[in-house]
């Protein structure tokens, strides 16, 4: 039996119009990315409440990534602009509290960027894996 390598748990919030479609395209093109990344579909990146991100960490996620349409391409015109401000402030605050900034990311992935989606997920997963388990924003009660 092989020693299983450490696989960080990662939640990826993808907007329905660009990034979720980008993820579909990655699948269409049979581009591989780690299975420890699970996608949650939201209508727009601006639907992602900071509470969801904290919730994910509480429930044992080691990294959270938000994917949305490129700025200017939001299906809802301006949703991702709000996302950008909200997450800039939230991530800055998390870093201020001493939580590793590498655990959170916002990436703009269009419906045409299947390759970018896969590459981003591979890279983010490796980045989070390098940090090891999330110890600074964890709720031990939720650990299995």
């Amino acid at each position, binding site marked *: 039996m092989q020693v299983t390598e450490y696989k960080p748990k990662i939640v990826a919030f993808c907007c329905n119009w660009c990034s979720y479609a980008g993820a579909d395209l990655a699948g269409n093109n049979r581009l591989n990315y780690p299975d420890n990344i699970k996608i949650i579909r939201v209508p727009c990146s601006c639907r992602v409440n900071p509470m969801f991100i904290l919730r994910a960490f509480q*429930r*044992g996620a080691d990294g959270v990534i938000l994917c949305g349409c490129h700025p200017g391409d939001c299906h809802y015109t301006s949703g991702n602009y709000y996302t950008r401000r909200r997450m800039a402030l939230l991530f800055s605050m998390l870093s201020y509290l001493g939580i590793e900034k590498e655990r959170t990311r916002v990436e703009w992935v269009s419906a045409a960027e299947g390759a970018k989606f896969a590459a981003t997920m591979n890279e983010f997963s490796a980045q989070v894996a390098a940090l090891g388990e999330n110890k600074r924003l964890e*709720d031990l*009660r*939720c650990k*299995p």
Partner: protein
Amino acid sequence: MRKCSLTALDALFAKMAESAALYLPVDGDDGRAHYAQWQEGLHLSDALNTVRSAKDFFFPQTENLMAFKVNGKTIEIIDTRTEADDFIVFGVRACDVRSFDILDTVFLAEPADSYYANRRAHGVIISLACTRPAETCFCSTFGIDASTPAGDVVCWKTDDALYMEAKTEKGSALMAALADLTEECDTDAVKAQQATTKERMAKLPLADLTADKFGGGKTMEFFSDPAWATLSEACLGCGTCTFVCPTCQCYDIKDFDTGHGVTRLRCWDSCMYSDFTKMAHGNPRLTQVERFRQRFMHKLVYYPENNGGVFGCVGCGRCLTRCPISMNIVKVMKNLGGDAK
């Protein structure tokens, strides 16, 4: 009575910590005293009292009662109770020692609260007599002698020594273990300190405060007092007073979904909160006036009524210093019944 030189205090603490976890007030980074587990290098605080009371040791802010493990459609109930480890709380002031009596009345009455009882059985309380009571102190209002606290072991700290006297079996057992580090002594120094402290107590600004007009059977007298409305008008409805109070014992029981099961926990609740004792039909106390009244009526009338005249307040003064709007039980006692200052 036995004593221990202050220079040997560390050795004394080290000895105590050998058999059980020892907690004592230490000065925190914020310059205020709080309880910490003793370890080499930690020093007993000189502060009068800790920000949070010693209630936490027996009735912690949150504790897990039980757990449920959910696996698909099956639910397994897990009893998470374990026998508590022995521990010692050192430096409890007279007011806080009294608070344990009040908590015991509530939690140890049948059916006894096994979680509380477990910790109570394993905890040894070493009290410490006050020497410099603060302007906010009014323990004497409730018949507490700050110079002579109760406890398993009672201590008096003078300039050069710690005087100790066991008051219970648990206390005697502990003192026996400390025999090598303490010596038998007379009570002169302690008596002198008690006299000074009593003198000081008598001169405190709140020394004249009396609870005589309150007590069991006074519900009708105070319940409809118009002063409640004005007293509570600035109340924010926060829980500061209840959470720093050594005698507040209300709690809520909550289920926390961990994702693979449920942890049933109990946590402090506050009668000042709008969702306190909220039931299916809503909240029995609809406005902050009623919630405010409840807290003070409970301390001053309901609790004595149900417990042989013992008041639910020990006069520690924590709420006087912590309330964001400086409303407190002293102002309430003075204003009710129409003899405002």
